[in-house]
């Protein structure tokens, strides 16, 4: 039902919008809040009871007398519900933020419809247990995301960013479809759990794995396929950038679901693990070095995004590389995976905050160029504090949440291979330098005369940003709680391939 409600709400929104603007806004907020509430209930249920399988249209996955599951399955385990929590939180905050950010635009109905479709697509990608369903929801999320990126078509660069996003998404989604065709041709199955059980590691499987990793890495924005990311993230309206971030994380979730659960220990772990680690390292390094020379604030934050997703890939690549080695897994593999997953939610939070702050600046002064800004800290005190918070969290300074997740990744990666951890620390230092440059040029210094009458941002944007900031600080102060409740079950769910298969197939004969 979590998927159905945003879908239904998306199509009801234009109808309600004809009544009045206020009614539509309330409707969107209540539907998203209700979805968030359902997600939390489901999360509690999964934490206590284990994973959930819901078959569309029947009561159990395998009908009597069959050996394979027949219908489309939604399978939610701890990792899926973790991503669901991220999606629900960020989308609620983005909608609150959008209420006043989109004041000067027309076509609000279509904006909220597309936003709800994007949310539905992301939930679908995270909760599905079926490969083709994954493809369908990936396309739903891509199309609504691209339409939202290009929403403000009166600027010259918005449709260009949207076009790049839709081209890249279409190509990667078609590659995913090709790999799904390969799987179906071999095993006559589309269900992830059933495929995992029936998987033999043939040549075609290797090809399918390579295609899937490449396709999801493109959709994710890892180097060397990252060219679309800065363009797209900088021209989208700020709340949409936060949502697109979560969409990229949903593709990251799909990538890890494939690597860990679908293939598990049957693949050549050292090679694939090192490939993921190398992709992560490249993204981190190139992301942060290109961020140094940016003059556009949102492009700078977008390159930081590339860098942070590199961190996540690093953590999970280390976990992947030691998956078959129980001793190493127990000592640092689980910690690496847990750190990577924790960093996923931290990434969504503080990058979301940074993008919302950049959007707030753009809303007030109409430019994103750092060279033209100056001395805004005197006028927009609250916004500058929030930017500083987001920047420090991104670099991994205690007591913010970035520190907690990064220390997990550093410790575990150091035991795996010391050089990787040292590169990680270097990259964090450069990130701090980049953000200090941005902060100083935008917020401190004398007030430029043309910005004399810039006021603070409106209240709904403030509520959105402040909520994110509060969550960031809370996660930073109580990382143990987050680990125990959210990330460790998710990491264990990822490693425990057997439980996932068992949920679908029943007791394996």
């Amino acid at each position: 039902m979590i998927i159905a409600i945003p879908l239904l709400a998306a199509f009801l929104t234009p109808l309600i919008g004809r009544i009045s603007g206020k009614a539509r806004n309330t409707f969107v907020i209540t539907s998203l809040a209700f979805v968030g509430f359902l997600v939390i209930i489901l999360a509690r249920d999964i934490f206590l009871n284990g994973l959930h399988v819901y078959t569309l249209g029947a009561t159990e996955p395998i009908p009597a007398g069959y050996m394979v599951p027949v219908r489309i399955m939604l399978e939610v385990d701890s990792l899926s519900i973790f991503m669901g929590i991220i999606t629900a939180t960020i989308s609620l905050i983005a909608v609150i933020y959008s209420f006043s950010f989109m004041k000067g635009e027309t076509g609000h109905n279509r904006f909220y419809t597309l936003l709800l479709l994007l949310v539905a697509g992301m939930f679908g990608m995270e909760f599905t247990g079926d490969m083709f369903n994954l493809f369908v929801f990936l396309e739903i999320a891509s199309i609504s995301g691209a339409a939202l990126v290009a929403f403000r078509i009166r600027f010259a660069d918005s449709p260009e960013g949207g076009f790049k996003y839709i081209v890249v998404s279409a190509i990667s989604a078609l590659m995913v479809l090709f790999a799904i065709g390969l799987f179906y041709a071999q095993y006559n199955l589309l269900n992830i759990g059933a495929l995992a059980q029936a998987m033999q590691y043939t040549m075609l499987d290797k090809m399918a794995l390579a295609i899937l990793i490449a396709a999801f890495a493109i959709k994710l924005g890892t180097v060397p396929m990252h060219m679309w990311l800065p363009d797209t993230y900088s021209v989208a309206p700020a709340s949409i950038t936060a949502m697109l971030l979560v969409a990229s994380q949903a593709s990251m979730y799909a990538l890890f679901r494939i690597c860990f659960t679908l293939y598990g220990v049957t693949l050549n772990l050292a090679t694939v693990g090192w490939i993921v680690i190398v992709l992560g390292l490249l993204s981190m390094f190139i992301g942060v070095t290109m961020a140094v020379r940016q003059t556009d604030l949102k492009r700078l934050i977008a390159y930081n995004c590339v860098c942070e997703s590199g961190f996540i890939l690093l953590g999970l690549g280390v976990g992947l590389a030691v998956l078959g080695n129980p001793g190493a897994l127990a000592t640092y593999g689980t910690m690496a995976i847990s750190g990577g997953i924790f960093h996923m939610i931290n990434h969504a939070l503080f990058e979301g905050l940074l993008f919302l702050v950049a959007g707030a600046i753009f809303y007030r002064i109409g430019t994103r160029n750092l060279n033209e800004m100056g001395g805004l800290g005197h006028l927009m005190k609250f916004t500058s504090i929030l930017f500083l918070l987001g920047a420090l969290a991104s670099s991994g300074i205690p007591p913010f949440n970035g520190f907690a997740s990064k220390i997990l990744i550093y410790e575990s990666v150091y035991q795996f291979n010391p050089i990787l951890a040292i590169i990680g620390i270097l990259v964090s230092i450069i990130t701090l330098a980049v953000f200090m440059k941005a902060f100083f040029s935008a917020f401190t210094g004398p007030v430029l005369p043309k910005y004399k009458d810039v006021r603070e941002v409106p209240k709904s944007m403030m509520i959105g940003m402040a909520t994110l900031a509060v969550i960031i600080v809370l996660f930073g102060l109580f990382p143990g709680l987050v680990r125990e409740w959210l990330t460790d079950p998710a990491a264990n769910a990822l490693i425990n391939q057997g439980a996932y298969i068992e949920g679908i197939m029943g007791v394996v004969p």
Partner: protein
Amino acid sequence: MTGNIPFNIPFVAVAALISIAIYIIISQRNLIKIVMGISILAAGINLFLITLGYREGGVAPVYTHAPTGVVAEMVLPVPQALTLTSIVIAVATLALMLSLVISIYRHTGSIDSEESRKMKG
């Protein structure tokens, strides 16, 4: 398609379509040609999905009025469902891409991708 050709022509056609499409997307500068390249890629992959469901001498997978007797084998129906879904999604994607190309043309006056690459670096 019976078995007296040396290799399967549909799969060769799929390989040809996909490689032509990738070449177009990478090397063309005209935005409309890039969109056409994506359309050809989608066509190639849809053809791949249908071809992998083919069984020698099979009939259409419909149960009513199915021919009984000697030929009782059906072509796999699931890839055909996947292909229908994929065609619908491709239509929506292409519509969105073309409308974005129109919007880019209105802003920059040309559909050459080199002209509209305002954001570099």
